[in-house]
């Protein structure tokens, strides 16, 4: 019962925020258009958060996702503008999209390999690659961005009235949910995060699973990068600065433990939406972005503090 209440906590907060905003701004907030906007805007950080959930459950962390997103976008932009024409051809756009996603895969593979083969803490490795990926993003076009005017499908396109990026977001949520719940990889992720030594002694190939988790996260970042590129119709080397912190915050608000072994896809979605609706609400209410930062900071600390208190109570009972 207590566990149930605890899991409802972020849900409750989210509902509360939505209810409050609906009451305060019924005309602008409570519209299909606004909800669609919020979902669309949170799609790429939400996609990355799915990977981050697995990483954090495994007891790790990935600080490089923001820089990696910029790098993937820049690689895609480089390829899309190969012909030098202002409007990229459909062929190059498809090629660029695939290249951007592949770049994410490679970056994730690199993170996972460095962590497992050199036996280094994920915090250190991804702190290093965070810097390196950002640097490479700047080098690719001498610090300038690539304009890709016709690359609008992922950013603005709709399928049956639903934004394409929201559809992709939902598909990746389902995929992550399925992986964590119904595959050995997901189960091993929990086991490694809960007790790495015990998992190893139970025959889990810890290194292979960790590499898989970081690579999967990289792929998700690649996909997110293409959505971000399409939303701004440009690949920017400054994309995703401090995005990793938003994503980690969403995962943690969703009830995951930074010491590993605990976390859920559903929780992370709630965490992601909570941050997005807060931002949206603040904007609608005319609260400045500076104050928004303070509010989000308070929410992170408050959510985790409440979760801890509920947990302590459940354990004492």
């Amino acid at each position, binding site marked *: 019962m207590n566990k149930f209440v605890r899991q409802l906590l972020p849900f409750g907060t989210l509902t509360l925020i939505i209810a409050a905003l609906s009451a305060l701004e019924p005309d602008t907030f409570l519209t299909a258009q606004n909800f669609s906007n919020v979902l669309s805007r949170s799609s790429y950080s939400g996609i990355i958060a799915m990977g981050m959930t697995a990483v954090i459950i495994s007891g790790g962390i990935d600080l490089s996702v923001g820089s990696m997103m910029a790098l993937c976008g820049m690689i895609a932009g480089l390829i899309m503008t190969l012909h030098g024409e202002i409007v990229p051809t459909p062929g190059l756009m498809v090629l660029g999209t695939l290249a951007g996603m592949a770049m994410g895969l490679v970056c994730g593979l690199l993170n996972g390999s460095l962590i497992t083969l050199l036996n280094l803490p994920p915090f250190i490795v991804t702190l290093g690659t965070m810097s390196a990926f950002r640097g490479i993003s700047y080098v690719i076009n001498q610090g300038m961005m690539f304009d890709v005017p016709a690359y609008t499908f992922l950013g603005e396109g709709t399928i049956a009235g639903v934004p394409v990026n929201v559809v992709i977001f939902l598909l990746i949520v389902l995929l992550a949910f399925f992986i964590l*719940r*119904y*595959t*050995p990889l*997901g*189960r*091993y992720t*929990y*086991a490694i995060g*809960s*007790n790495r*030594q*015990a*998992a*190893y*002694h*139970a*025959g*889990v*190939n810890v290194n292979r699973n960790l590499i898989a988790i970081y690579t999967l996260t990289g792929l998700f970042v690649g996909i997110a990068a293409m959505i971000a590129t399409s939303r701004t119709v440009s690949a920017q080397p400054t994309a995703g600065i401090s995005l990793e912190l938003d994503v980690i915050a969403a995962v943690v608000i969703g009830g995951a433990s930074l010491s590993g*072994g*605990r976390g859920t896809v559903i929780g992370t979605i709630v965490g992601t939406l909570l941050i997005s609706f807060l931002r949206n609400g603040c904007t609608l209410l005319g609260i400045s972005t500076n104050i928004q930062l303070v509010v989000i900071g308070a929410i992170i600390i408050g959510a985790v503090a409440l979760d801890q208190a509920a947990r302590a109570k459940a354990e004492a*009972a």
Partner: protein
Amino acid sequence: MTPASPEVTPAQHAALRMTSISKRFGPVQALRDVCITVRAGTVHALVGENGAGKSTLMKILAGVYQPDTGAIEIHGRPQSFAHPAQALEAGISMIYQELDLAEHLTVAENIFLGAEPGGPLPFTISHKQMMARAAGLAQRFSFDIDPAAKVEDLATGDCQIVEILKALRHHASILVMDEPTSSLSEREAKRLFEVVRRLRREGLAIVYISHRLEEIIDLADQVSVLRDGALVHCEQAARLDIPKIVHYMVGRELTDFFPTRAAQVGAVLLQVQGLSSEAGIRDISFEVRRGEIVGVAGLVGAGRTEVARAIFGVDKRTGGQITLDGRALNIRSPADAIASGIALLTEDRKRTGLCLELPCSWNITLPNLDCIGFKPFLKPAQENRLAGDVGARIAIKWSSPAAVAASLSGGNQQKLLIARWLLANSEFLIFDEPTRGIDVGAKTEVYGLLNRLAEEGKAILFISSELPELFGIADRLLVMRRGRLVGNLVTKQTTPEEVMHLAAVEEKT
């Protein structure tokens, strides 16, 4: 409020008196009307199966829990502790099974943690004075320990000495020791007994909790037995023997403490030839037949666990060959070993065994996800049923297979790990100290399980530090000393004395 100083106790006055202590947790009556008196200058052993209420009683004494009814008197003064700090203030110190030391600090820093002698300037510490006082304290009780040594460099036995010194620094007059020997070697344990006797002579009242009944008979003046939250017996140790204590603990005679061994010994299953590993074992050769339980004896550090780790692929082999059922194996990881039909129940179930915050069912199926029924995707319903079935087979007490492993008692946690390997249907099973820290009832169940596995034609390697259980259950005994195999004996044709002699002979000459 001032605690009696440890030196003065001509007559053995009651240092601690707990009367009619009761405590209820929800529907569970953890303690019922327990009375216990511990005299200064005596060792009072507290025994009982896991869940009998020993630790609840001690936590009440330590001020962690408050009793529902009952009173505590310390040196004749009524006390009630709302907080652990008050118990400490009253002269009660606890030394728990899991030691509570800051590893990176020195012995002296640990002893004076929170009460460092001040230096010349405010907010500074006088290291010189701290060292001197720590050395003085150690000398007064004739403990041989270097106050400047880092705790992480100490052996477990020495860490306990540090804990004891910490307690003495608090002017403790009542010392509670919870399973102090569970992770000590025979020699360290002997030294600890000397220390306990010295503390007794100094007039401390010592409450001693242990599952090892031999040492209780040896060490204690008085023995109290708890069962199901009630005090069932209290008598002078001199008038008790192990069968009597066991009788009071379990409420029945354990005539069949060890099962009757009737397994059919068959063909050779595992053959180890010239095994050496990076962890320091050298040239180990032996074989285990189907239906056979082979015990491994030796002192702590003799390399028993290392043999298990080398076979299971945890430590890197540097030489030798392992053959299972005639097939030569090349095992490089636990995953390889499990795939070949080898299981290892590790000696430390918390560190290398269980994922404590995950469900019991997940812990049972963890090495088994490659089995039929789980591929290609997990089926939670089926998983729960399989785990539930195997759990029922060995009578695991849980609220459901979905309960987290941490919610189970020590004995049942051990059974979870056994269930894991039952489900894996391994042919060759290594049990490394499977009965450590579990109660008498659970121990007999583990022996029974080993026996049943042998009867099913499995081969078992059974590592233990307790000779009685090795002699009770094993068909043959391997004896190790300093990384080498120094004896391979038929249990019925040898004696504990011979085994001890083989295991320790170098240290005697």
